[in-house]
């Protein structure tokens, strides 16, 4: 026979419907969000994990300055890999009829990286339409098209030719649209990939990029094996004069690995958030149960005296939290799996170009969103109830269950005004409620500040990056290109290029005089020189202000077990006009402030840098720091740079210039401009905007529910005193001043006192979360956002206080007149 006490449960649920609905709503909404997110994220993880097989994704790729000789490809294939050409052409793409109202959509041009249709590696998956079938058709990336409202059938201009969009697709090697794998963020707003037929590909007038993808014959290489393979490939290419300009395995390619890393990292954050929220809600239950136990103290004493066991009473008081927890978990999971998975999926699918979504059942998600919340709720309640019910039956009968009477008995200075002492006593008597309220407010505030500060942090990061941009243009070259050349040198270089790049058949078709002229012009080019002459003309002014530099990609170890940080090592001119604040000296290196902060480097100490493409490591003494907190570069005098890397004297591979330079596109790897930073802000705003809204909404719900539940407990406990006050002749406003203002002071104090804790915790959290990513994120929490956070908290509280004023007005006088048992 079940205990008749069980019949109280539905009545208590109805009687305290507001209270339990609030808790149910908060837990179920949280679980719905988290389960929706986790099921979407875990499904995406699986989709990503299946991509290598399903879409025959590459294990790595290398790009050469020129088409790799056959013997180089054969040498690579002898290492146990298959190699496929994935040549691309990058061209400007324009279109008409772009619509939409956000900033991103206002752009009607973008860079498209066009590939030939693939049938061996890195196969495309089509969300809409189909692969291009004729030379004037193109398939474009899904995310890019979604951003710009481009659809199948629309027409775009690529390199001056019109193409009709035949399909909306995704490529496994571009699940994140990184224009350059070294970029900090992907760019799905002004960059896209495209697929065309071989004829369509050839029709685009843009230089070729000679990229090759490889797949190991042996599947499932681990990271070390992949790195060894990469090293062997690098050696094979160098030995066969293939001139690789970049070489990376899939794990190092942000365009491939970024989405997977992001999905994986975010899940932990959501799980931690859920656990924290459930623990806080469990404490709310403990406070509520404690309040009930105090109110029912004599009943409990009578039941215990009649022979009830404590565990039966614990089970009774546990029933409601457990029931609400289980119902909330079930409802939350249902909503999460049926509804919220879609917006959560879109958090990723709006940013990443992944194959069509498919939901997969995941036991871990079920465990995290059902078992863990219920078990946590039950455990915290169990401990709380056992503490509350540890009194003897007699103590319950005498209502001596808490230490409140002792706190009530604390002597307060008489010089304090009566109202101050009264409010202090309310605070002391309700300390557990107010402590739980403080924790809840701190948690909600953390979410809110996190949400509100996302964009300021990104803006600050972009500002830092911008401030580290020393010139309007930083051209990175594939090979040293001399721009200070005269007309005859330009002609000579152009002739040499034409001779080397024109297929033999076409050369034979040329007239003899033309060939002789070409050969004569080309003969002026020194074949042994590492420097080529620019074929395009620049003004004397532009040439004069441009400054040569050299740059190499290195790595250094992050503190702890966080892997390696990418470092750009610059070789700059002594007395550089562009890096004027970088005081380089012989025999030492200057490091960016961001690099120094993140990796714990200090002036006078050493930094160990390694080359990921070779096994070489370099240990350099640090003579200074420079730049912003996001500067992850290191600087050497260019002569020392060249000595260190064994380059020829006078080697360089970049120009810093405030004026645009005309450089033969064949030799330009990238042109970094301050506009690129704006792209970062636009992309991050786009990715994080919806997340900010979610966090603000969730924080507001938590504020209202927690403030209402916990402060109502205080008023409910004080109902008799409030009734007495009314009997004594206090006006409602005076009663409010005593009770509501005590609560108001506590709420406002909690909102203010938790700020330093939040700032410290958030600083640590951001540092910890981003430690594994390249770059140094500096947490910037503008005072305005903190003020806004407090204001949101106060606005939520005002709504709650309004309900309390009504509640106090409705406390009947009869309570005071009833005999107190």
């Amino acid at each position, binding site marked *: *026979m079940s*205990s*008749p006490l069980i019949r109280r449960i539905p*009545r*208590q649920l109805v009687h305290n419907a507001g209270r339990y609905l609030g808790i149910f709503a908060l837990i179920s909404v949280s679980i719905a969000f988290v389960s929706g997110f986790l099921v979407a994220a875990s499904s995406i993880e699986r989709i990503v994990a299946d991509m290598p097989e399903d879409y025959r994704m590459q294990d790595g790729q290398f790009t050469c300055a020129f088409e790799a000789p056959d013997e180089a490809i054969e040498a690579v294939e002898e290492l146990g890999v298959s190699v496929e050409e994935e040549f691309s052409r990058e061209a400007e793409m324009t279109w008409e009829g772009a619509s939409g109202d956000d900033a991103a959509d206002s752009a009607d041009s973008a860079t498209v990286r066009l590939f030939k249709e693939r049938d061996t590696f890195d196969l495309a998956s089509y969300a809409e339409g189909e692969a291009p079938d004729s030379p004037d058709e193109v398939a474009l990336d899904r995310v890019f098209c979604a951003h710009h409202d481009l659809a199948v059938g629309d027409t775009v201009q690529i390199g001056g030719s019109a193409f009709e969009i035949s399909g909306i697709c995704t490529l496994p090697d571009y699940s994140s649209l990184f224009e350059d794998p070294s970029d900090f963020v992907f760019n799905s707003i002004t960059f896209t990939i495209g697929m065309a037929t071989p004829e369509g590909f050839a029709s685009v007038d843009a230089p070729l990029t000679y990229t090759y993808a490889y797949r190991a014959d042996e599947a499932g290489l681990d990271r070390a094996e992949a790195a060894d393979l990469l090293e062997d490939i690098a050696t094979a290419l160098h030995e066969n004069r293939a001139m690789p300009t970049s070489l990376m395995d899939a794990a190092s390619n942000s365009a491939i690995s970024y989405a997977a890393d992001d999905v994986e990292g975010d899940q932990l954050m959501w799980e931690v958030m859920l656990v924290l929220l459930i623990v806080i809600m469990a404490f709310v239950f403990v406070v509520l149960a404690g309040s009930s136990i105090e109110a029912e103290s004599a*009943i409990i004493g009578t039941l215990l005296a*009649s022979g009830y*066991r404590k565990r039966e009473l614990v089970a009774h008081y546990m029933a409601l939290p457990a029931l609400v927890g289980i119902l909330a978990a079930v409802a939350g999971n249902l909503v999460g799996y049926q509804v919220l998975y879609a917006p959560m999926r879109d958090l990723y699918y709006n940013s990443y170009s992944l194959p069509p979504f498919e939901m997969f059942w995941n036991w871990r998600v079920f465990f995290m969103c059902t078992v863990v919340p219920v078990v946590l709720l039950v455990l915290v309640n169990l401990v709380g109830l056992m503490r509350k019910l540890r009194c003897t039956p007699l103590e319950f009968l005498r209502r001596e269950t808490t230490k409140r009477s002792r706190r009530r008995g604390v002597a307060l200075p008489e010089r304090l005004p009566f109202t101050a002492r009264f409010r202090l006593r309310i605070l002391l008597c309700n300390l557990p409620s107010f402590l739980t309220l403080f924790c809840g407010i701190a948690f909600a505030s953390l979410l809110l500040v996190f949400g509100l500060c996302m964009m300021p942090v990104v803006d600050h990061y972009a500002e830092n990056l911008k401030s580290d941009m020393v010139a309007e243009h930083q051209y990175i070259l594939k090979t040293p290109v001399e721009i200070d050349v005269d007309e005859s040198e330009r002609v000579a270089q152009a002739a040499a290029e034409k001779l080397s790049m024109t297929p033999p058949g076409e050369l034979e078709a040329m007239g003899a005089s033309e060939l002789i002229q070409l050969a004569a012009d080309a003969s002026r080019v020194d074949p042994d020189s590492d420097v080529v002459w620019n074929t395009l003309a620049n003004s004397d002014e532009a040439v004069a202000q441009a400054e040569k530099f050299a740059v190499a990609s290195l790595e250094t170890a992050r503190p702890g077990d966080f892997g390696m940080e990418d470092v750009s090592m610059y070789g700059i001119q002594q007395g550089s006009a562009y890096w004027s604040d970088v005081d380089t000296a012989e025999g030492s290196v200057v490091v960016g402030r961001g690099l120094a902060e993140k990796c714990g480097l200090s002036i006078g100490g050493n930094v160990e840098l390694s080359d990921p493409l070779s096994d070489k490591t370099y240990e350099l003494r640090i003579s200074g720091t420079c730049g912003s907190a996001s500067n992850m570069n290191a600087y050497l005098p260019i002569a020392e740079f060249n000595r260190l890397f064994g380059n020829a004297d006078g080697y360089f591979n970049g120009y810093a210039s405030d004026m645009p330079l005309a450089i033969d596109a064949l030799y330009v790897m990238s042109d970094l401009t301050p506009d690129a930073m704006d792209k970062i802000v636009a992309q991050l705003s786009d990715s994080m905007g919806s997340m900010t809204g979610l966090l603000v909404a969730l924080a507001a719900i938590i504020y209202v529910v927690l403030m209402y539940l916990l402060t109502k407990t205080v008023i409910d406990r004080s109902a008799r005193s409030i009734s007495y006050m009314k009997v004594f002749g206090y006006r409602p406003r005076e009663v409010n001043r005593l009770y509501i203002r005590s609560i108001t002071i506590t709420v406002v104090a909690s909102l203010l006192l938790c700020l330093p804790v939040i700032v410290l915790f958030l600083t640590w959290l951001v540092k910890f979360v981003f430690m594994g990513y390249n770059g140094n994120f500096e947490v910037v929490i503008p005072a305005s956002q903190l003020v806004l956070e407090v204001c949101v908290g106060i606005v939520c509280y005002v709504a709650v206080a309004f309900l309390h004023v009504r509640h106090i007005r409705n406390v009947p006088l009869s309570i005071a007149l009833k005999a107190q048992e």
Partner: protein
Amino acid sequence: MAFLEVTDVRKGYGEGDAHIEVIKGVSTSLEKGDFASLLGPSGSGKSTFLNIVGGLEPCDGGRVVVDGVDITGLSDREVGEYRRAELGFVLQFYNLIPDLTVRENIEVCAHLSEDPLPLDDLLRSLGLWDQRRKFPRQMSGGQQQRCAIGRALVKNPKLLLCDEPTGALDYQTSLEILTLMEEVNREYGCTVVVVTHNDAIARMSNRIMRLHDGILVEDSVNEERVPALSLEW
């Protein structure tokens, strides 16, 4: 052997100079079916004595044997089981569960017994049949105390301990409750101990005990027991 044997029970509170002895070597015994009144002024130790017999607090010395079991030697858990099996408590304040009906409040304790009294019969004999679906707040103090008595009785306890059961009631209602207890004692044969400071109630008991400053100053058999309904004060 008597049903309840109390031998040289002592109980004090506080330590050192603040130590006060509330029960000073009380010895007495009751037979099964006795209706005993425990009288005394406030602070005489009568509630403490009742609590010790009920296993709600331990004594500092002496023995309390109920139906052959020495409860002073039991662990906390065993004392709990003793209360569960043997005892019914009626207190001055009814301590009914507000969100359970009369019937359900009584069922709360029926649940503890393997052989509870028939609930409907009990409700009728308590005069609560018509009120059985009401909640405590919908009833008078007398009706609530009837319900509390029903809750104590439904387990069919061997010993019913009542601490000022009419303390919060008016005269007429007190008579009704005392009559009810009289019937319970007679019909169900359980031993009843009523703690009261009202001397008039002693006249309906067959045993009268009086405590003064922790000492049992009177322990007598009442040969002139009168029906509860004839009591006046």
